[in-house]
């Protein structure tokens, strides 16, 4: 009996050890700033298991504002994940991780057949590819179709038509725009999406080349137009956050929002009946083409020396296929970066997808632009506090333009000569 018990005990311990070790062996840890992707990874795990790959995905989302620091410290301390969401290039944070040698290049290990060269450019550095891009983001004006229909409004073709729509809505007691002004990054996004249509890509190209600068009357005029638009925002808009905006828009308390396609998932979760439409920020005149701000959001990167490198590579291989794109877009309503995916046959998503193909501005000054690669950055240091200051009436549109010129000309050579 004693002998039997001993053998049983050894067997139990051995099985337990095998279970634990096999679990660890197949576990792939993924870190992200996008909590909305949890369901995506659960589905990916199921799909890979169905294909005979016994992976167990441990997805860990972090608060976006703290993600980069946590990731960097974990990588430095050797306690990082196997795969992580890397922000796009050019960008100081991902570049620093690449320079420190924490990301394994994926060339020759993953087939990038289903990606356009433009998409891959945003995760390439020194001729190497450092991740599998996951989403294209399209930003613009999202509107409540029911409210528009009620007042007989049409999607505006020019800025003046937009103002006219706002005026009609306001007269009828509807808040035209809901602005989450407490979160400064949303104001920069607003400026940038208006910039691509109102200033136009050619003007932004000239800015990048140093043929014009931020003191140009056109840039000041854009600041002034945005400042004038604030009378159509909800009262106390500088005290509202994105969560307030999502709730207000989903339940029809405001007619329009400046946002990205990523908002659709939240609005529909809050109110499945919300009828959302999209249009690009209209240009000043009808003869000008409207543009959308389109950018690659980020990529899945493989940590060099990952605990379960082989299994992580299998996960990444899958993320580079249209099947992943189909899962991703059906859950998140985001546009997958991978080509050939079956996006949901949602008219809005299809419209935005079409816009991303035909109207993407080739030159930009927010995410993905040269102006956010060094400090002071046009994003964090200039337009984020500057837009809040202008909306609060603390600085004028001219002063905002001067802030931009003074800040960027500190380090960006093409703008140094123009004072």
């Amino acid at each position, binding site marked *: 009996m004693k002998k039997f018990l001993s053998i049983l005990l050894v067997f139990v311990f051995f099985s337990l050890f095998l279970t634990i070790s096999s679990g660890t062996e197949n576990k792939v840890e993924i870190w992200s700033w996008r909590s909305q992707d949890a369901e995506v990874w659960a589905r990916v795990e199921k799909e890979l298991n169905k294909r005979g790959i016994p992976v167990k995905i441990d997805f860990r989302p972090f608060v*976006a*504002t*703290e*993600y*980069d*620091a*946590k990731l*960097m*410290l974990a*990588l*430095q301390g050797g306690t990082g994940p196997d795969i992580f969401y890397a922000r796009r290039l050019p960008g*100081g*944070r991902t570049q*620093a*991780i690449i*320079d*420190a*040698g*924490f990301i394994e290049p994926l060339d020759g290990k993953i087939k990038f057949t289903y990606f356009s060269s433009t998409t891959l450019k945003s995760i390439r550095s020194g001729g190497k590819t450092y991740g599998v891009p996951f989403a294209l983001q399209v930003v613009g004006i999202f509107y409540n179709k029911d409210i528009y229909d009620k007042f007989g409004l049409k999607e505006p073709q020019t800025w003046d038509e937009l103002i006219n729509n706002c005026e009609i809505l306001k007269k009828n007691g509807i808040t035209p725009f809901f602005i989450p*002004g*407490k*979160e*400064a*990054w949303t104001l920069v996004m607003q400026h940038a999406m208006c910039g691509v249509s109102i200033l136009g890509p050619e003007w932004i190209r000239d800015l990048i080349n140093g043929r014009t600068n931020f003191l140009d009357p056109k840039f000041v005029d854009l600041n002034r137009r945005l400042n004038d638009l604030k009378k159509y925002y*909800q*009262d*106390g*808009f*500088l*005290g*509202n956050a994105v969560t*307030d905006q999502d709730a*207000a828009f989903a339940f029809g*308390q405001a007619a329009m929002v400046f946002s990205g396609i990523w908002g659709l998932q939240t609005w529909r979760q809050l109110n499945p009946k919300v009828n959302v439409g999209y249009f690009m920020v209209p240009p000043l005149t009808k003869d000008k083409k409207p543009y959308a701000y389109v950018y690659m959001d980020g990529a899945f990167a493989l940590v060099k020396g990952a605990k379960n490198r082989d299994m992580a590579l299998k996960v990444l291989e899958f993320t580079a296929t249209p099947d992943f794109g189909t899962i991703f877009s059906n859950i998140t309503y985001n546009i997958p970066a991978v080509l050939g995916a079956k996006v949901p046959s949602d008219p809005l998503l299809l419209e935005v997808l079409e816009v991303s193909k035909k109207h993407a501005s080739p030159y930009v000054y927010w995410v993905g632009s040269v102006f956010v690669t060094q*400090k*002071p*950055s046009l994003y*964090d*240091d200039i337009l*984020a*506090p*500057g837009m*809040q*200051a202008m909306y*609060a009436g*603390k600085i004028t549109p001219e002063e905002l333009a001067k802030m931009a010129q003074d800040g960027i000309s500190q380090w960006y050579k093409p703008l140094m000569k123009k004072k």
Partner: protein
Amino acid sequence: MKIKWFDLLLFILPAFFLYTIFVVYPFISSIYLSLFNWVGVGAKKYVGLKNFFDVLFGSFKGEFFNAFGHNIYFFILVSIIEVSLGFIIALGLATQIKGYHIFRSIVYLPNVISMVLVGFIWGLILNPQIGLVNQFLKVIGLGSFTRPWLGDPSLAFNTIIAVNIWRHLGFYVLVMLAAIINIQPDFIEAAYIDGASNWDIVKNIIIPLTIPTAQTLILLLFIWSFSVFELVYALEGVQAGPFRSTDVLGTLFYRTAFGGLGSARMDLGLGAAIVTLMFIVILPISFIYVRLVERRRI
């Protein structure tokens, strides 16, 4: 009795060990780190005292002194209001009026709520559209006084201070109450017999005898004012908006050291320099203050 030094050391050792690991070591490594540029990964770049120069005289000067000014303002306003209000309420409670037990519990209640929850609750209460404050003002016919309390740069920091006072007032009331109760009743009885009025007793007995407690509280407030962080973070986020109008050294350090979305710079070395400067400000002033108070007592 002869002191057994070995036993004494044995008792001190665990605390000394923990103190060294969790206080001394991080502090020294923070000073060391302040001499480098480091984003958190890769090699650290030795820059000597450049981080301190940047913070005090260079490109980071504006952000640092803006936050530093807010800390000073926070200390002055909170000290005046919390200590004086704490004293007045404690005085009321010390009279042991009917139901004072319940009132004491109510005053202390916010102290037991976690700071993150305080931030969440007040975020809702101060919401410009659905918040209780603006709704109440509209109901009583003062709709013109509704404001985006956390979105107006001239109001946001004072609003945070008000929430902070709501959260901590109970502590100051309890401490002042203990100080008042500790005054020997004989003094007060004798004063009454001599014909002193209530105001005379407060002015000539209670206030002078509670001053040492108030001094200790002010010293604590000074130290806490320079480490204020959670409430600003919970109500305004790491960006300490609108446009840094609620920025304090704590949020500036956090934003600089740990970066993230909306942070102006990300450099652990620069963050460490801010922390070191905070220490340089707090330590000597605390010492001078303690010395001054002690000298006056002698």
